[in-house]
């Protein structure tokens, strides 16, 4: 019986893996295919690989700065959301105040509206402030959703740390701020890392806000991809090359903090 279950589970996992990985494998292979192979009626598995797409798109077409933009936007929004959200999450975990749970829920509701309904007013607002087409606009936009993520995830991590640790730190000679920065933050480092990576990934992958708010200089990688859909046809090889580069940091980060990420998403976020 258990053997049969094991087999079934294995088959299910395998099926999920095939479904999840096939498109990625496809993109990966396409990035090394010549235009002819990429457009072949019957997809070819064996072909003569070409390395032309990578230099073409990143050097000749000037997509390299977009990588930098994506890094800048994703790191900045992560940092900004953590700096604001982590102390807020700590207060939610430790202190009682009027309408606390309502406020906490409010953070979540900011994620309930469809982004498209928010992005137009946001564009008008940022235009008035004169910051459209700058990474700053995207950083602020991404922070709106990352902030709620930080507060929700980190509250659970802080709640896991016994209150007596705070008190012990203060008895050991820390001020309230010192206790938080020198003891609580290091203690919640695993949760902090998971949250940071998740923020980074969400911002890195985000398309809609970035697409509406920046057009030229401040473009991120995701926004750059549609630029390869030309009137003369879609440059599949180059699209694939950009996609591969765009997914690399995500894969690396996810592997690094996989364990904490799962815990943070299931345990930390649910326990409030």
């Amino acid at each position, binding site marked *: 019986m258990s053997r049969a279950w094991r087999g079934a589970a294995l088959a299910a996992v395998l099926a999920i893996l095939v479904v999840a990985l096939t498109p990625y494998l496809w993109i990966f292979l396409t990035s090394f295919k010549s235009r002819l192979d990429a457009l072949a009626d019957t997809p070819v598995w064996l072909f003569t690989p070409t390395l032309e797409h990578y230099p073409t798109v990143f050097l000749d077409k000037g997509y390299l700065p977009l990588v930098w933009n994506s890094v800048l936007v994703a790191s900045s929004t992560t940092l900004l959301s953590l700096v604001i959200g982590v102390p807020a999450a700590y207060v939610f975990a430790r202190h*009682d105040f009027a309408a606390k749970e309502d406020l906490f829920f409010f953070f979540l509701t900011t994620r309930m509206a469809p982004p498209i309904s928010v992005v137009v007013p946001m564009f008008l607002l940022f235009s008035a402030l004169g910051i459209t087409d700058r990474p700053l606009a995207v950083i602020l936009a991404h922070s709106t959703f990352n902030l709620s993520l930080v507060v929700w995830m980190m509250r659970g991590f802080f709640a896991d740390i*016994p209150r*007596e*640790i705070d*008190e*012990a*730190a*203060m*008895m*050991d*000679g*820390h*001020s*309230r701020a*010192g206790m938080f920065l*020198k*003891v609580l933050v*290091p*203690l919640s*480092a695993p949760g902090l890392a998971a949250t940071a990576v998740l923020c980074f990934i969400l911002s890195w992958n985000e398309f809609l806000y970035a697409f509406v708010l920046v057009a030229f200089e401040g473009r991120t990688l995701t926004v750059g991809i549609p630029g390869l859909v030309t009137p003369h046809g879609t440059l599949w090889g180059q699209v694939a090359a950009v996609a591969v580069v765009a997914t690399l940091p995500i894969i690396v980060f996810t592997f690094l903090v996989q364990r904490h990420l799962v815990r943070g998403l299931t345990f930390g976020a649910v326990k409030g």
Partner: protein
Amino acid sequence: MGVRFEAVSKVFPDGTVALDRLDLTFETGEFVVLLGPSGSGKTTACRILAGLEEASGGRITVDGRDITGLPPRERGMSMVFQNYALYAHKSVYDNIAYPLRVRKTPKGEIDRMVRAMAALLQIDELLARRPAQLSGGQAQRVAVARALVWQPDICLMDEPLSNLDALLRLHTRTELKRLHGELGKTFVFVTHDQEEAMTLGTRIAVLNEGKLIQFDTPKRVYHQPRTRFVAEFIGRPAMNTLEGEIAGNRFRAGGLELPVAGRAEGPVVFGIRPEHLVIRESPTAHSIAFELDVAELVEPDTLLFVRKDGVALVARGKLDPDRLSKGAAVHLEFPEDQRHFFDAETGERQGEHQGKHTS
């Protein structure tokens, strides 16, 4: 000099009165035990002294200095927590060294002090470990070491032994007493365990419902409890208390009648400890006959639960329970110098008659 609570109150936001104008003064160097049932305010008093909780009223002075509004770090006190509260991401060594580091003690000094304290608590072998690799008793020692390493004037302990198993609790208790003797610091120890309080304290502050009921040496708390509450709270099994009446120099409760001389007439609560009842196998001039209900062996003693016309008592003595059967006659004497009388309404202890009392 010493530590002084002056009318310290604490009302929590939900309206709970944890401390009700507490007055308490003790000297430096004492081992003060705050004893009381849950909700008595003992932990709150300790936390207010530490600065972890803000008093709603009153003030606290240490050696004449008002510390009421000071943050914990400026009070010169340390604390041992019930759940140890060790820093999970630091080694035992770093846990103990931490208060010294925060207080910017010179490096060489830190190492010397940590090792000395670890040796004193016999945890020198554990310095490289992480808190997760320690047993409960070891973790407790590390917590004590961390609290004492920087030589604070006052060390607060909030039920530090409650998470240890029984045997270890006894052992650690002895260690703490030894430590107090060696270091000469002021210890303030919170517990609900009267036995811990009796063995550890130089003085015991018995609290109930946010009020100080009695503050005395263990001996006096035991022999001269100020109220019926203290009398019943201290000592196991609890003191026998009987609500009755004195009339014509006799105390009557149910079917029990005792000659008492020189006491005011009227309703009263009579008390006597199980271990002070004298058990006789045959009647004597002063004994009263009871009927045995249950006999429990608590080596080396025996507890006898006896009855007489609606009055139930517990007596503690050295009788072999195998020789007694349910319903057997047990003769008890009530030594005059071991009797306690409490006001029927307030529960306050009534004055000793004829000044005849031991201790």
